[in-house]
């Protein structure tokens, strides 16, 4: 076993822990908008950082573990909230990977916006199936606008983190 592998595992687990903490912090921030599903998506900050710092493989792993651990720690495994976060995670990951591999021209901003939008779409599909509320599709336009705004913010924060990380760890 070499040192760099241990370093990578340690860093990934730090990213994972930060993602979980951000997820919990986010739920403590009260938003004045009475629309279910509108949130900052702070946890995606860690996802994007891992995707750019490492590769899609680590992105998928950290994303899955984060959703799994948050479900285990807070909402309960198999509870409606955990199923909804899984459905959002799956759809947004699929599209992030498609964009990462096939659309080379967009930057971290476009990737973050699409990730947020497809996360919302995944959650709405989840709500429609889970609660048989097809009229929830009416919320998609509002969620798309909020996802675009939060996507830009998260991408901006992520570029700051990535620049700092590149300065701090020149070797992976």
């Amino acid at each position, binding site marked *: 076993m070499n040192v760099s592998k241990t370093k990578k595992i340690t860093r990934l687990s730090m990213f994972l822990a930060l993602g979980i903490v951000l997820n919990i912090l986010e739920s403590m921030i009260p938003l004045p908008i009475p629309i279910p599903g509108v949130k900052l998506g702070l946890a995606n900050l860690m996802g994007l950082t891992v995707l750019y710092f490492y590769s899609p493989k680590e992105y998928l792993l950290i994303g899955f573990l984060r959703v799994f651990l948050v479900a285990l720690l807070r909402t309960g495994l198999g509870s409606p909230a955990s199923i909804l976060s899984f459905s959002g995670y799956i759809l947004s990951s699929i599209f992030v990977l498609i964009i990462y591999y096939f659309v080379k021209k967009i930057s971290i*901003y476009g990737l973050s916006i699409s990730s947020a939008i497809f996360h919302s779409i995944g959650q709405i599909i989840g709500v429609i199936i889970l609660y048989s509320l097809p009229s929830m599709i009416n919320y998609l336009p509002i969620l798309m606008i909020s996802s675009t705004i939060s996507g830009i913010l998260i991408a901006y924060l992520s570029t700051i983190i990535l620049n700092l990380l590149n300065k701090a760890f020149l070797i992976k």
Partner: protein
Amino acid sequence: MKNNFSLKFNIFDILIAILAILISVSSIIIVNYKANSNGDRIINIQYQNTSIAKINYDELKEDMVYVIKKEDYPDLYGDFTVEISIDKGVRVHNITCPNHTCEKYGYISKKGKSIVCIPNGVIVSIESESIDDVISVG
């Protein structure tokens, strides 16, 4: 660090953002345009996608309270109270549910507005009489 992706905002990102906002704004405008058609305001109370009560808001004489009872609808967290006030509008109050998002809506009174309580599977929406006909035909 893989440098195959840019960290700088470029024209493709702006296109994606504009596309997303255009799609959402246009669909909001279409939905509002449809909702603002003529006819009385109908308060439609839905439970798991089936309408359980329709109240004509414009013909209402006095304030009323509609209670969806847990005995009748066992998937509810508790009795679900819809308060209908002629002056203020429609609101849900003292709801038993995990997140209380629905109570934050406050009073609604315009067509096309709705209160959604996802955990309880209840939607209270104000619809137009004419739109109602369209839906029942389709």
